[in-house]
């Protein structure tokens, strides 16, 4: 196990470097990082040259990247163009997005698994077909359409919720945005659980449990669920990183000032430091979540042994 962890950690390094380098190149080489500083007008050449020199942008790209990464690992993500530290921006943005992600994950676990178990146990019945159709529709409708429609219906027409989330973004205001963010994954969790349950209901150990005369409830919770939920748990784990990165659309619709909002503003204003910093953290979150899920796999399923 220890050796496996070390190997995975080593494997993470090239992926981390590659992903951050890719983003770094996209931002710094294809765009002009100084242009954002001068706002809407074009920079005066002398000022631009001076700024380039001050920020070290006249150095080769690999050197810029190394300097940047060196700073990141000492906790310095640089300064946004308005003078705010990027770490300060992160400090205000990440708690909001983490709350949003938690709401989304809770929805995935509660609704997704319940629906999956219900449909998996009643395969082929009307409930099953109905839920399957609904999941297909949910997967097909892009998140921004779902979000706008829910905002229109619940927020504007029926006035059940406030159409936009306040700056502090407490949990109760994040319920509908969380549902929107979770919607596609929710449908996926439902289908995954359903397949897994339906496969395992025919397994020998379930038949043995039934033959022993165990009550149905116990068969389902102790024997069937425990084995069927392994792929689901791993999916939800890896989804954490994807949800945090994918929150841009949801945060834009509901005006949530989280990671997606900061990133979007950073990109619009060509705020290089903000964009690269946030993306670096998101990539790290994604990689660590993946690693944890792989380790969890071994804990949940004793048949899997890592050499």
């Amino acid at each position, binding site marked *: 196990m220890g050796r496996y962890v070390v190997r995975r950690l080593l494997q993470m390094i090239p992926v981390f470097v*590659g992903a951050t380098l890719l983003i770094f190149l996209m931002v710094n080489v294809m765009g002009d990082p100084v242009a954002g500083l001068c706002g809407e007008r074009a920079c005066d050449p002398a000022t631009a040259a001076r700024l380039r020199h001050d920020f070290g942008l006249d150095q080769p790209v690999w050197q810029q990247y190394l300097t940047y990464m060196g700073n990141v690992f000492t906790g310095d993500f640089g300064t946004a163009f308005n003078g705010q530290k990027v770490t300060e921006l992160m400090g205000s943005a990440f708690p909001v997005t983490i709350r949003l992600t938690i709401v989304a994950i809770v929805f995935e676990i509660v609704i997704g698994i319940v629906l999956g178990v219900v449909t998996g146990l009643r395969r082929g019945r009307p409930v099953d077909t109905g839920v399957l159709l609904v999941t297909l529709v949910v997967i097909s409708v892009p998140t921004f359409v779902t979000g706008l429609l829910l905002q229109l219906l619940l927020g504007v027409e029926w006035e059940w919720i406030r159409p936009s989330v306040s700056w502090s973004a407490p949990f109760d205001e994040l319920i509908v945005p969380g549902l929107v963010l979770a919607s596609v994954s929710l449908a996926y969790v439902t289908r995954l659980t359903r397949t897994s349950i339906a496969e395992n209901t025919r397994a020998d150990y379930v038949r043995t449990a039934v033959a022993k005369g165990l009550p149905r409830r116990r068969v389902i919770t102790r024997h069937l669920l425990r084995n069927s939920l392994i792929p689901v748990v791993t999916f939800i784990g890896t989804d954490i990183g994807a949800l945090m990165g994918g929150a841009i659309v949801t945060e834009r619709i509901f005006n949530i000032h989280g990671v997606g909002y900061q990133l979007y503003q950073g990109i619009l204003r060509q705020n290089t430091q903000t964009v690269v910093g946030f993306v670096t953290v998101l990539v790290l979150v994604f990689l660590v979540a993946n690693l944890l899920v792989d380790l969890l796999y071994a804990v949940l399923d004793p048949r899997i042994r890592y050499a």
Partner: protein
Amino acid sequence: MPEPPQPEQPQPDRPHISAGDRAAEDGAVAATGMGGAMDLAATEAESLEPAQPGGAPGAPERTRSLWSDAWRDLRRNPVFLVSALVILFLVVIAIWPSAIASGNPLHCDLAKAQDGAESGHPFGYNGQGCDVYTRTVHGARTSVTVGVLATAGVTLLGSVLGGLAGFFGGTWDGILSRITDVFFAIPVVLGGLVLLSVITSNSIWPVIGFIVLLGWPQLSRIARGSVITAKQYDYVQAARALGASPSRILLRHIAPNAVAPVIVVATIALGTYIALEATLSYLGVGLKPPSVSWGIDISAASPYVRNAPHALLWPSGALAVTVLAFIMLGDAVRDALDPKLR
């Protein structure tokens, strides 16, 4: 069900792939920020791989091939028929939008801004006074074009690179796997925002190029896994023993038997790419306003949603139906190609 061990049957598990890699693969699949449906496609396509030889042309007493069998199934599947009809209709109006909407989508009349439906303009007007019906019909062209071209690019690049990596293995395979890991670690919408925001071109090509750039690793992974499975079979060993060249083995023996999961994933991906284009256009980095796209229209309509919800609902509905049609088509094709479900 206690089954006697059958020595000639391929193992139900994919060989050469450790549990850790599988888990990593499952995880990485979830990385595509957009893609619940892609995940779905990817995981469900995995079930195709080991099941291949059941319907493959290998059993002499069965003359029907996997493909003719699948086609026979598809023709009777109402889901397939409905989605195929919807797609056919979309393709027709994409090629020839003036057949059902003769107006000019760029013709707007501010005096009619946000007006509801009237005769000759069944969907009403949007915030700029443009006819929503005409724009919705004309929007099909960009969506279908982007979807088809991006899928073609992704499938070509992904299956060639993934197939070669799976077939030859070794260093190249290792490098390719690490490269795909890198691309999986970047959330799709985020990458699109970063990359496309610096491109000022006004055509559909940057969007297609971006989707191909971030989409090919998904396909290459599927193709690689499927080629590795197909490589193990006896008929491939037999061909090798007979002295067939690697290119002949790859093209004549492996490719036909490894292509099914790729087709399934590509079909479902087409739907998600259309959704992705709309999402990027909604965020303002995909296609830019003079082009007519559902994403642009939805984005433009969202500030007026209180007064003119119809301008939001019609393009959204068209988008949802289109994506749904492609995903259902992919679902139907997967069911038909998966012999386990027969």
